């Protein structure tokens, strides 16, 4: 069973001005981070239970906390996976989803099973690829998109060209 108490308590502790403005000693700042991270775990269980109940399907949900540095073991290895996007705003939003993937071509379908446009972009100065597709998510709701590798086809991944050289 999930539990948000520890995250609530961590957030309560972090109302201290040291946490808000970074004026604590390093070991205290590290402990703030530890408390937050410890709170995330049980909250993710809570979210998974809620999503299972609301979506009607018991899934092994994965929370990729490092998407901002293009790390997500599931999307980088699985041949097919589901992407659930939850929108906390009180209005529908269109959101560009970016997920690190392996070097393949992918088929992305929206909740109605319709194929949506997607791209695989290679990150310059690295060989990482990112899958992009635009998701439409209802107000205070979620949408579930399915992603499937297209066997056999290698990506015409959009690599980058040099934009400018060092001025003479």
């Amino acid at each position, binding site marked *: 069973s999930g539990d948000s108490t520890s995250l609530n308590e961590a957030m309560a502790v972090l109302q201290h001005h040291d946490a*808000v403005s970074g004026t604590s*000693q*390093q070991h205290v700042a590290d402990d703030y981070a530890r408390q937050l991270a410890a709170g995330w775990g049980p909250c993710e269980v809570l979210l998974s239970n809620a999503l299972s109940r609301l979506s009607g399907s018991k899934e092994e949900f994965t929370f990729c906390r490092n998407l901002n540095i293009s790390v997500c073991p599931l999307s980088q290895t699985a041949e097919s996976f589901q992407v659930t996007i939850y929108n*906390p705003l009180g209005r529908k939003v269109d959101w560009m989803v970016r*997920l690190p993937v392996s070097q393949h071509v992918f088929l992305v379908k929206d909740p109605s099973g319709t194929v949506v446009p997607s791209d695989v972009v290679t990150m310059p100065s690295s060989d990482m690829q990112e899958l992009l597709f635009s998701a439409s998510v209802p107000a205070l709701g979620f949408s579930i998109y399915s992603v499937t590798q297209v066997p056999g086809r290698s990506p015409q991944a959009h690599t980058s060209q040099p*934009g400018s050289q060092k001025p003479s």
Partner: protein
Amino acid sequence: SRILTIQNEHLRARFDPDTGLLVELKNLDHDLLLPVRQAFYWYNASTGNNLSTQVSGAYIFRPNRQEPLLMNHWAQTRVVKTALVQEVHQNFSAWCSQVVRLYPGQRHLELEWTVGPIPVGDGWGKEVISRFDTALETKGLFFTDSNGREILERRRDYRPTWELNQTEPVAGNYYPVNSRIYITDGNMQLTVLTDRSQGGSSLKDGSIELMVHRRLLRDDGRGVGEALLEKGSGSWVRGRHLVLLDKASIAAVGHRLQSEKELLSPQVVLAPGGGSPYHRG
């Protein structure tokens, strides 16, 4: 052409072909053209001087001179253009890079900056800023938010509630920016949305700066008892600034709606799929 451009239906961003720096923004909906140069700089942190022994530290921002140092006059750039995104990747130095992005239908330019680990081997603490310079005649005024709600007018070297004797021309004009900072000449407005609280200011007419990362070598004597100096090589930080150019009369719609989307952005959860039904039958 050699001019580096990324563009969607609403916005066009141009980059200097030789330096790779952003030099111009155009709002295509309202035909607003604004030369704007964006670059990264760093202030050399003060270790005290003849005017004051005050050191720059966790509580106190105090550069040792008014002018920050330019991170680099140019950036090595790489361009990515697909149907779903146009990006210019800028590499300024080993510890400073940025991706400037435009998605279809988007009315703001996304600047994803990555700064750090800040080197301090030269014995200098560094306080890194991203700065936007334009020709907007802003008459010493700029605007910052208060916790994403009230917008406060700021005037350089001035306080509304007392006669200010400005002794710190840089730090004395820095204010908290929780979600946005903007400048306007009454016709055009340039707004920068932040994805976290930062220090910000407008130290010259037409200019906006936001502090993105700091690494200091001395304690500032205000109670922490240690320098703002992560262990080891130090942390590197990644964040995003969203830049909007609009008519001053309608700019609030754009930045308020976008800022809500930024603050309450969608959460992504993955699953292998094919799970068993939750409800019996």
